[in-house]
């Protein structure tokens, strides 16, 4: 395992080096831009001039209708979406294990989120901690009434009696929508250590990771108090918070847990490719909730996020098929599915900031990057990221975060990237990405060590050979006996 550490350091080091180098180039107007950003303005300061005929703020049924569905769509991404995308890719003897992991994360993280996760991610704390982590005021959602409006909003808001501003959907709906993100993020990581992890180790690790990595990073980037938010980092629907975060954790986990027995860098064919198609399609559909829902309203911004998401995904899928054809003569189904997911990942942070051109370029480039990464670089580096959780979510997420700093256009929201004259935004994006890589990488490393000590992480060679379905769950996925 010595050698794994080396790889780990090299990869993380290289990534950080890259990022910091670029950061040093044109770093002026960052702060100025950040100042403008009222994107997610929790507990925002007085803004609205109270008009003579003040209208009591109310829930907007249209926005609420869309956000309920958006939350359900994001739920559908994890189960059945991800469960089938990943489940189809593993060998038959491990399919239930991967599906079980998706289902139990949905169950356990939902409870964690209501009990304290939401509060520490989106709540406030006082003093020096405020920019880094929320307090426990909203534990068990206490104090959040059913007709309270969401303190978080983006494009739609309304003035309050006390001169503040507030959203148009119920606060608990915001809690739910965000809760679905908290569920899927650790679920993305499972692709990295698939086919060789103990169930207990996986579960303990995931809950700790959700609490100590996901919740804080979400606070930094999306909470009104968060330091990266204040710095002006743009992350529309979770490029850094979800994909970079999970992707780096995946890389670290893949290296730490070690390769599968008999893994020699060559591919193992998926046991059920139609399941992969099913998962991909439901991810594609559900992702509309993820991205178009992230504006928290049913308006033009949501439509734009839908458009850029759909378009980037489409062209990324097509690009992968083309690369498959050019380099290996045949376009493959797993290839086009991977390309689609890569496109979805990359457009995520940018969906509400870029237009048609940005979406097309983000989609094309992410397919090329991931194609190279999983097809060539991974084999060279020699780590065993079973389902390419890093190769797709990590690489795609980093590219998406950077691309947001390149292609953000004032035609959509009031933010510009490098290509629209604001180099500072790129720097901010690089810093946010670099910080996330560092934090997620280090914490994941530590958590692995702790969990491995406490309950053990790696399945025994025998468990691995027999398969995790039978050894971890005493079940067979398919039984022909009648």
């Amino acid at each position, binding site marked *: 395992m010595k050698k794994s550490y080396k790889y780990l350091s090299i990869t993380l080091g290289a990534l950080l080096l890259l990022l910091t180098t670029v950061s040093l180039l044109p770093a002026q107007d960052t702060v100025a831009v950040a100042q403008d950003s009222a994107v997610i303005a929790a507990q925002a300061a007085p803004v609205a001039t109270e008009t003579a005929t003040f209208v009591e703020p109310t829930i907007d049924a249209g926005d609420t209708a869309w956000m309920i569905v958006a939350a359900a769509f994001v739920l559908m991404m994890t189960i059945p979406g991800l469960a089938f995308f990943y489940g189809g890719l593993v060998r038959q003897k491990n399919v239930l294990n991967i599906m079980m992991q998706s289902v139990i994360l949905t169950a356990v993280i939902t409870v964690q989120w209501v009990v304290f996760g939401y509060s520490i991610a989106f709540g406030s704390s006082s003093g020096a901690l405020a920019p880094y982590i929320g307090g426990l005021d909203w534990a068990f959602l206490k104090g959040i009434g059913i007709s309270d409006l969401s303190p978080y909003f983006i494009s739609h808001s309304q003035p309050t009696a006390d001169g503040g501003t507030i959203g148009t959907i119920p606060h608990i709906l915001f809690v739910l929508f965000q809760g679905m993100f908290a569920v899927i993020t650790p679920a993305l990581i499972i692709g990295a250590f698939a086919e060789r992890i103990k169930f207990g180790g996986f579960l303990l690790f995931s809950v700790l990771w959700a609490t100590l990595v996901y919740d804080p990073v979400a606070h930094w980037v999306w909470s009104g108090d968060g330091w990266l938010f204040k710095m002006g980092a743009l992350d529309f629907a979770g490029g850094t918070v979800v994909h970079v975060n999970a992707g780096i954790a995946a890389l670290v986990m893949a290296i730490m847990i070690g390769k599968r027995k008999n893994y020699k860098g060559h*591919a193992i*064919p998926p046991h059920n490719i139609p399941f992969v198609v099913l998962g991909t399609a439901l991810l594609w559909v559900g992702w509309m909730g993820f991205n178009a829902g992230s504006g928290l309203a049913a308006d033009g911004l949501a439509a734009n996020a839908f458009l850029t998401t759909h378009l980037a995904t489409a062209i990324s899928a097509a690009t992968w098929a083309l690369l498959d054809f050019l380099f290996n003569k045949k376009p*493959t189904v*797993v290839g086009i599915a991977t390309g689609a997911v890569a496109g979805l990942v990359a457009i995520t942070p940018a969906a509400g900031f870029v237009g048609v051109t940005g979406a097309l370029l983000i989609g094309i480039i992410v397919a090329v990057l991931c194609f190279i990464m999983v097809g060539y670089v991974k084999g060279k580096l020699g780590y065993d990221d079973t389902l390419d959780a890093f190769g797709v979510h990590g690489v795609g997420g980093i590219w998406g975060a950077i691309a947001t700093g390149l292609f953000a256009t004032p035609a959509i929201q009031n933010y510009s990237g490098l290509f629209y004259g604001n180099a500072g935004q790129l720097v901010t994006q690089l810093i946010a990405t670099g910080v996330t890589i560092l934090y997620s990488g280090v914490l994941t490393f530590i958590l692995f060590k702790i969990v491995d000590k406490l309950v053990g992480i790696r399945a025994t060679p025998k468990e691995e050979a027999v398969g995790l379905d039978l050894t971890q769950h005493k079940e067979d996925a398919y039984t022909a006996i009648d």
Partner: protein
Amino acid sequence: MKKIEAIIRKSQFEEVKEALHEADIDFFTYWDVTGIGNEVSGGIYRAQVYETRFIQRRMITFVCRDHLVDNAVKAIINAGRTGELGDGKIFISNIEDSIRIRTGEKGPESLFIKD
């Protein structure tokens, strides 16, 4: 009575089936197997080209009276051959007895329908 076991390409199955029919072999049983032999076949998985010597094949087996064996073998060879590595093998062994479950008939006459 002899038992013939033929491991053939799945893609030649239709041809072999018809050739057997013409060689008076009307009854047989088959299932899918994986074979390791000289042939190598390839796949692509996320931009990685990989090769596998594990090939999906079909096992055909039937028991027939001795005088039908030669024709049956010839039929399989003609219909199953593509000339490329991996066309498969035929194995012949001896069967001591055969019983038709429906009637209890024993020996060769359990293998055909007298009219």
